[in-house]
């Protein structure tokens, strides 16, 4: 039990928390753009799965994890394009389209996984991102080990938070996005192309969701496993709600979920007598608690989930 309080344990726990935060953070930031523009994107789960798979495929054939990440982003955008076409252009119900996108992603990834690599007993491993120690900063005790010895995708994810805040609150683009999500008709009247803004936001969520998925397969591991996203895309959607649709809130929510996940893994490793299945349930239970009551509903974009028809 004293294990839990040791510095090594703490560093390992916090460092794992950061790593587990990143995929959720990427996807949640993507989900934020989509939701702020008025499109509920529960297809993020599928988008992440596609990103995780195509990242591995890209890295496998080019032997470069950068190309893997690029391929994951492109494929994330492609699958998001189907979603955008369905929800923004044809105005099909967003939830139902999201479910269809998720099913499509499960099918496509597991089909092509078998088609490309066959049925293997040993998992296919590829070149994955290596940790990048930031000089000086990484030598700070504890913090250096936790924050400044991560892969580059981790740094990118965290830098995206202030960048997103800047875009949303300091640029006309951000204002456009928020207007479209709050009051599409007003936006339309002043000449903001509602459908175009929404499409771009959904595609952006595809790019970020793809990157989040790719971090799972290339940033944490170096392989793809069927269904490896296992609900993180949905948790990201919950993080958007819990974070009240703001980059800062989403960062905190993602860290909370990342920490919960890391904590349950670490507790499993300490060999406590709690059945491991209950520990595995923890992040999902936390998600339910998070979206219930703790946050006010007032900040949801008013036009969220409603297709805009002139």
């Amino acid at each position, binding site marked *: 039990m004293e294990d839990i309080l040791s510095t090594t344990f703490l560093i390992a726990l916090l460092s794992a928390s950061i790593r587990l935060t990143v995929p959720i953070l990427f996807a949640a930031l993507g989900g934020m753009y989509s939701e702020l523009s008025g499109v509920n994107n529960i297809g993020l789960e599928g988008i992440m799965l596609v990103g995780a798979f195509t990242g591995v495929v890209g890295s496998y054939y080019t032997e470069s994890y950068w190309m893997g990440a690029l391929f994951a982003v492109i494929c994330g955008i492609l699958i998001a394009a189907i979603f955008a076409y369905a929800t923004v252009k044809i105005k*099909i119900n967003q939830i139902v*389209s999201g479910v*269809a996108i998720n*099913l499509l992603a499960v099918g496509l990834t597991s*089909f092509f996984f078998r088609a490309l690599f066959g049925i293997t007993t040993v998992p296919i491993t590829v070149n994955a991102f290596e940790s990048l120690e930031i000089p000086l900063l990484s030598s700070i005790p504890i913090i250096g080990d936790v924050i400044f010895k991560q892969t580059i995708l981790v740094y990118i994810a965290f830098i995206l938070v202030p960048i997103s805040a800047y875009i949303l609150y300091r640029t006309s683009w951000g204002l456009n996005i928020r207007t479209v999500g709050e009051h599409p008709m007003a936006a339309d009247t002043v000449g903001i192309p509602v459908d175009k803004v929404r499409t771009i936001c959904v595609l952006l969520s595809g790019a970020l969701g793809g990157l989040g998925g790719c971090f799972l397969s290339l940033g944490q591991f170096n392989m793809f496993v069927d269904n490896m996203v296992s609900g993180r895309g949905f948790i990201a959607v919950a993080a958007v709600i819990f974070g009240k649709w703001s980059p800062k809130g989403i960062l905190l929510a993602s860290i909370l979920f990342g920490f919960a996940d890391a904590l349950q893994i670490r507790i499993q490793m300490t060999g406590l007598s709690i059945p491991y*299945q209950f520990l595995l349930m923890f992040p*999902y*239970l936390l998600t*339910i608690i998070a*979206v219930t009551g703790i946050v006010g509903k007032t900040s949801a974009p008013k036009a969220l989930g409603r297709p805009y028809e002139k």
Partner: protein
Amino acid sequence: MLKKLMLRTSNNLLLTIGIPILSVLLALLIGSILLLIINVNPLEAYKYLIFGNFTNIYNISEIFVKATPIILTGLAFTFAYRTGLFNIGADGQMFAGAIAAVYMGLKTGHLSPIISIPLCLVASIIAGAICGLIPGLLKGIFGSSEIIITIMLNYIAQYLVSYVVDKPLREASGFYPQTDLIGENAFLPYIVPNTRLHIGFIIALILAALVYLILWKTPFGYRLRAVGFNPDGAEYSGISIKKNIIISLVISGALAGVAGFTEINGIHHRLLDNFSRNVGFDGIAAALLGNTNPIGVVTASILLGMLQTGANAMQRGVGIPANIVSIIQALIILLVLFGNKLRPIIELKLNKKQEAE
């Protein structure tokens, strides 16, 4: 006037059947492109996919075996959907139903079937209903998203199954993470000898009829649909939205819970980790393909059952991963939704054309 009306009805029927059929064909077409990419002759593959089932009675009956839980989860989605709710949690509700059914089956399986089977059924209904009550209460009281909550409950229920077969109900020999076989008297009787087709299929059909009657032929169902159709209007006319949301999700969960019962007492006869995963999502596919109408759900479930058993035949015959069917299924959903959006336009054109004649 009468002629006009008749034309319109025939057009309606044409589109109601036509759109799903066209969607299936188009989805198969897109699937064949994928097959060509991996160097497989689509005609050869589809020969197995479509006709692979019809080789003997056993294979044909497997279509209905597969369709049974899909009908039930499809009805679950339909019931909530008609009240304006999205129950994405049929998987979890089915798992809960299965845990309850297997527990009851282990405890009462030595008694007479007339006692044991109904007890298992009731247990699964209660467990599924509780799984629907949770999102119902949270949605009704706090206004939380039932979508996220039902999805999260899927994962929680899945781990609960894994726990139950790992610890409290692990088989006596303790070898595999699974429960003992339930008592033979709790097995659902077979309809066709030497097949696995059990009366769970009939139960599913009866429930489909019940759902239809409740939703369309009772004041209670009218109120539920009013909440889904126009919540503000319903509230204005004195219908309690909260109450109806909770009731709808409870019934929806109960329907999915029964799928757990039919899978345990009809097919597996024990609880296994990872059993029947994703049936809840197949149910959503069936519900949408069947236009969220119980008759449509039954028809669509049988079609999906056919595709899934066909996929296995295809995998054996040509060695293509059976997963292609899940791609085709997802494409079917998207195309049906797309077709339904286009429907008013097509209808208008058809009516004009026929009137001109």
